[in-house]
């Protein structure tokens, strides 16, 4: 099994001080490299059958470690030694916000963002986390008889959302109150934005929650929600939208917080134990960063070699 050799060879000299580069010589072995992604993968030894793709070895170790940490945390939780989780204010605010909606007799609006319009992209987990939070919100809405509106453009998430809402109403003993029309689908991103704008303006929800794989819609929905004076709770792990969530929402969750929140609302130690596993991983890699920086500075590039393994 031979994957392509690094086929486009051109030497280039780069002068660090002046930040100038120049090409000295070049050669092309095979034009097919233009279409192949293989140059990015270097095989260590073509004789081996099971090979770790070079450069990804350490990442694999980290991933395995995380599974181990998760297992340990779960076992600890089963023994009743669940770690304490710090408060997530945005989640605590949900109860109050739904309460306000009850008083004002206005609905609650919930949405999970564009997320490339499918669960099978790398945005999928954010949408799942969002639906996890939705199950909590829906239960509250069912309890207090507040209508809930869910706008989405992710067709393959519809079965999940339906089951989540139905389960929420059933668990509160009001299966007949579940209205399938509260889930509204629009194809693609911009019609979805249009529909959310329309919903906000026409049905004037008291609470506007946008949690998930948000894209440009974050600032549009956030400002439109502000205009009608809704309490806004937002969250995303997409870095490029975090500033807008923070700017437009009363309560914002950024990055890891939305994943943690979906566990946090369950208040179930078995579920929240995983958050501790995440903290341990962070701690480990932080130690590695400090150690690595010190060693690099003293001229022993062991850690950086390890990371590149």
């Amino acid at each position, binding site marked *: 099994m031979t994957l392509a050799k690094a086929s486009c060879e051109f030497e280039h000299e780069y002068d660090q001080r002046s930040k100038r580069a120049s090409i000295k010589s070049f050669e092309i072995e095979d034009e097919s490299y233009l279409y192949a992604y293989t140059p990015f993968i270097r095989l260590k030894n073509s004789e081996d059958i099971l090979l770790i793709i070079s450069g990804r070895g350490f990442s694999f170790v980290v991933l395995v470690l995380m599974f181990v940490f998760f297992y340990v945390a779960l076992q600890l939780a089963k023994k009743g030694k669940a770690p304490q989780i710090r408060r997530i204010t945005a989640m605590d605010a949900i109860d109050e916000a739904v309460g306000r909606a009850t008083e004002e007799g206005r609905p609650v609006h919930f949405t999970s963002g564009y997320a490339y319009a499918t669960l099978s992209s790398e945005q999928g987990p954010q949408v799942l986390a969002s639906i996890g*939070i939705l199950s*909590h919100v829906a239960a509250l809405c069912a309890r207090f008889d507040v209508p809930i509106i869910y706008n989405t453009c992710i067709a393959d998430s519809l079965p999940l959302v339906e089951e989540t809402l139905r389960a929420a109403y059933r668990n509160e003993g009001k299966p007949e109150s579940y209205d399938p*029309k509260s889930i*509204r689908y629009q194809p693609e991103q911009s019609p979805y934005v249009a529909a959310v704008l329309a919903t906000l303006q026409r049905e004037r929800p008291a609470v506007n929650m946008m949690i998930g794989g948000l894209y440009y819609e974050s600032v549009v929905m956030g400002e439109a929600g502000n205009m009608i004076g809704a309490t806004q709770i937002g969250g995303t792990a997409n870095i490029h939208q975090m500033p807008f969530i923070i700017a437009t929402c009363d309560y914002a969750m950024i990055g890891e917080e939305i994943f943690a929140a979906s566990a946090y609302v369950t208040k179930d130690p078995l*579920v929240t134990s*995983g958050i501790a596993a995440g903290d341990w991983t962070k701690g480990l890699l932080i130690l590695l960063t400090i150690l690595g920086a010190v060693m690099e500075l003293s001229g022993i590039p062991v850690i950086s070699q390890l990371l590149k393994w």
Partner: protein
Amino acid sequence: MSNILRKREMILFITGLAGGMMMFEYFFAVPAVATASTIVRNWAIIISTLALGLGILNAVRLHSGHIRKRTKSQWIFSVWLLGYFVVLTVIGLWNTKFIVYDWSFKYVYTSLSSTFYALTGFYIFSAAYRAFRARSIEATILIVSGVLILLRNAPIGEAIWKGFPILGEWVLMVGQLGGMRTLTFVAAVGLIVFGIRTLLGLERGYYGGVE
């Protein structure tokens, strides 16, 4: 048979299998797995594509409800939506080059897509107006870094004072780096923990709460 198939464990097993395959393929160079996971990815695309029908059913249900109930200042638009959609779909499936479809594609679909995207220009402005207020030290840092970037991007900043682009450049190339790295890093940690939870069936968003 259907009792076994109904079990949550079976569904989680399939999920784990598909997820495990994607991860394995990424770390190990085994041609058989690579081929298999490409096939599974193609399956996922096909299934997602077929899910569009669910969305259409959803919309038809919503809007036919509006029409039946004659919802005030809505039902007429619902009629328009469904009628236009059916006509356009039939034409589009028959021939995408046909004038009605082509015209709608260019002047309604493409044009309005960029119109809606450009809406953010308005909203980002008022968001900046609200967010950029020096309520606290944090907010002040947010303003200073935001404004420096604005002055770097607009040629007028350079014309006002030569130092603005240099400061803005520093914020962009160095100042924001650490924070960005953290956000990338912790989002990944959270995501992986969440992913493990999903695969183990502990996650409420994915059949955690249903029997």
